[in-house]
C-alpha cells in the first residue's frame, strides 16, 4: 500500500510520531538507567505517552468532551478510550506505589538503589554460595 506523504497525512500523523518519541524517551530511561527510582519515573513517562496515544484516537475534530449537553447537533469525542485510560492510569499508579515500596525495602537491605551495585552484591552472594558448596565438597572427600 502506497501512502501519499502529503501535508494532510503528515499533519494527521505528526501527533502520533510525537507520542512515539515520548514513549521511546520513557522506555529508554527504563532500560538504560541504573537508578531504580528513575526507572520507575521512566515507566510512568512511557505509560503516560501511551495514554496520550489512546486519548488521541477518540478525538473528533470539532467535537467536545463526552458530557451530554442535550444539544442534538453537538459532536462528542469517543468516551471509550477515556474510560480505558482512566483504568490504565489507576493501574499505573498502583504499579508505581508498589515499585516505590520495593525500592524502600531494597534500600534498607542493600543500602543502595543503583542497579549495578545491587547486581554486584547479589553476584557476591551467589559466589559465596558456590564457594561454600565447593568447601563442603572438599571436606567430604
Amino acid at each position, binding site marked *: 500500500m502506497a501512502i501519499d506523504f502529503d501535508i494532510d497525512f503528515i499533519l494527521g500523523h505528526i501527533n502520533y510520531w510525537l507520542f512515539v518519541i515520548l514513549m521511546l524517551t520513557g522506555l529508554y530511561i527504563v532500560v538504560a538507567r541504573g537508578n531504580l527510582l528513575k526507572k520507575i519515573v521512566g515507566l510512568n513517562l512511557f505509560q503516560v505517552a501511551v495514554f496520550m496515544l489512546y486519548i488521541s484516537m477518540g478525538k473528533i475534530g470539532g467535537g467536545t*468532551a463526552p*458530557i451530554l449537553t442535550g444539544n442534538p447537533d453537538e459532536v462528542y469525542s469517543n468516551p471509550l478510550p477515556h474510560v480505558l485510560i*482512566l483504568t490504565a492510569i*489507576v493501574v499505573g499508579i498502583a504499579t508505581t*506505589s508498589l515499585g*516505590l*515500596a520495593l525500592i*524502600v525495602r531494597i*534500600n534498607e537491605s542493600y543500602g543502595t538503589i543503583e542497579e549495578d551495585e545491587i547486581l554486584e552484591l547479589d553476584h557476591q552472594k551467589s559466589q559465596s554460595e558456590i564457594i561454600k558448596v565447593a568447601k563442603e565438597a572438599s571436606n567430604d572427600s
Partner: protein
Amino acid sequence: MDHHLILRVITKILVAPILLYGLYVQFHGDFGPGGGFQAGVIFAVGFILYGIVFGLRRLRQIFPDYVVHRLVALGVLIYAGTGIVNMALGGNFLDYNVLAEKGYQGQHWGIIAVELGVGVTVFGVMMAIFYSFAGRPPSLDDKEW
C-alpha cells in the same frame, strides 16, 4: 513542623473545603468530570495534609491503621457486593437494572454504590500508603534536601 504557625492555621481552614470538594466529586461524577477515584484521592489528600502539618500521630488517632486497612477492603466489597446483590435479584453480575423498577433508576443506584466502593478503597489505599511511607524512619534529614 510544630513551629509553622501559619501552616497550621491555613491547614485548618483548608481541610474542611477539601473534604467537601471530595464529597462533591464523589456524588457529582454522573454529571461532570470526576467520580469515586478522584474523590477518594481528594479526600485522602485532605487528611494527609492534616497529617503532614499536625503530625502522623494525631492523624493516626483519628484514623487508626486498622480502620484504614479495613476501609481498603470494604470498598472492594461494596463494589463486588453490588454485583452479588444484582445476581441475587435475578440479573447478571453488575446488572444494575434489577435494583429498581425502572432500569435507569436501577442504574443510578448501582452507579452510586460502585462509585462509593471505588472512593472508599482509593481513600483507604492512599491513607495506607501514606502511613506506610511516613511511618518509616527516613534516611535523610529535613536539612539535607
